[in-house]
């Protein structure tokens, strides 16, 4: 049964990547793209064990890296770091109240952008850290917050009943 759930997770991430590259890439929010994988991973991490959350973050990050085909390992690393921080500092979050998880999605997005900026800089791709990138830290985080209003309740509905066994 667990293998089936892992398989479903894998399919969800693949579908999310396809939707992100097709539908949402044409639906930008003031020039910013949606990071649907980050929203899914952060939303899921409230309802599954730390170990599973970290494994899922790693798998999703790796799939995203392979899909992008550049700087493989960057998203793998970043999603694991973000989920680790979320799990460490959000133990007192009331999952039924949507406000706090949404704030965590927003802060996770900002953290993701800053850490990705650092990785780009270290990797010698500092030319990507332009004005648009700086604008998108806020725009992208707001976009993630808005879409998290839909994704988080879906994760809650699907996963809260498995709490403790996942």
């Amino acid at each position: 049964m667990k293998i089936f759930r892992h398989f479903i997770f894998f399919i969800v991430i693949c579908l999310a990547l396809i939707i992100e590259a097709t539908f949402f890439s044409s639906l930008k929010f003031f020039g910013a793209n949606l990071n649907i994988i980050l929203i899914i991973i952060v939303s899921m991490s409230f309802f599954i064990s730390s170990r599973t959350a970290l494994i899922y973050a790693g798998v999703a990050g790796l799939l995203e890296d392979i899909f992008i085909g550049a700087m493989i390992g960057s998203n793998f690393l970043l999603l694991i770091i973000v989920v680790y921080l979320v799990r460490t500092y959000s133990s007192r979050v009331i999952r039924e109240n949507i406000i706090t998880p949404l704030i965590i999605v927003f802060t996770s997005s900002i953290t993701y952008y800053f850490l990705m900026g650092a990785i780009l800089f270290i990797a010698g791709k500092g030319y990507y850290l332009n004005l648009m990138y700086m604008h998108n830290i806020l725009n992208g985080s707001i976009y993630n917050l808005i879409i998290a209003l839909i994704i988080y309740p879906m994760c809650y509905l699907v996963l809260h009943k498995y709490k403790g066994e996942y």
Partner: protein
Amino acid sequence: MKSKKISNAKRGRTFIIIGLIVITIIIRITNTNSIGLAPVESFFKEMLYPAQSVTSTASNGFVSFFKGLVDYKSVKDENDKLKAEIGELQSTNSELIQYRVENENLRLLLGIQESNTDLVIVNSEVIGRSIKDWYKTVTINKGFSSGIRENMPVINYSGLIGKVTGVTNSTAEVTLLTDPKYGAITVVTTETGYPGIVIGDEKGLGGLQMIQIPSTANIMEGYEVVTSGLGDLGYKNIKIGKIKKIVNSSDGLMKRAIIEAYADFDDLHFVGVIIKEEIILTPTENEIK
């Protein structure tokens, strides 16, 4: 008393006979093939018109109401059916509009192919875009099997849009001119043939700029910028855009030109990859491996 009764009966019969004769005469007179109404008919109709009109309206409403009650189900079914048909027609209409846009794009691309017979252009459709803001790339639905290789220039009907930076058997990744990774393109202005290099906007806002132009260079706003054929690209006269604005540097020695690209990089649907003629369109098994 008896004789009075007989007299009344006689009178009644006489009235009936006279009445029958009068009606017969009226029937005979009105039973003609002449067109139009007799004055009496006309007057009668005119007199009855208001009442007839009111009655007719009222009766129509009355009948419709009851008929509607009786036919409610069939009307509802018909309404649902019509709604479904409208939905289908709207969907078909949207598809037709999309096909028209696609057709127009492909026709324009075909036009480029026809006017440049020396080029071999592989037309393809954009099937995905970069999922990260900082990468300006698109994915197209033609790849190695269609003869596409890395570094081949990619155009649409407006002009140059980028180059191929990654190829799989059936897809290719195109890095747009606006991506800092693309590097510089060697260009010339059409009007004066002044050479220069074009790079993406350093702010990452999706624009282009021609840089390192001496302040004395003969370049003005509105000049068209095309590829020079030098450098990696190797193709001349592919349109890029027009000079929108010229900005002088603070020391006054150099200037740069802001270019308004012909292509809309956020709205790419069909593109053409210029492939070199010597490439075999059908790759061998070893090549695929």
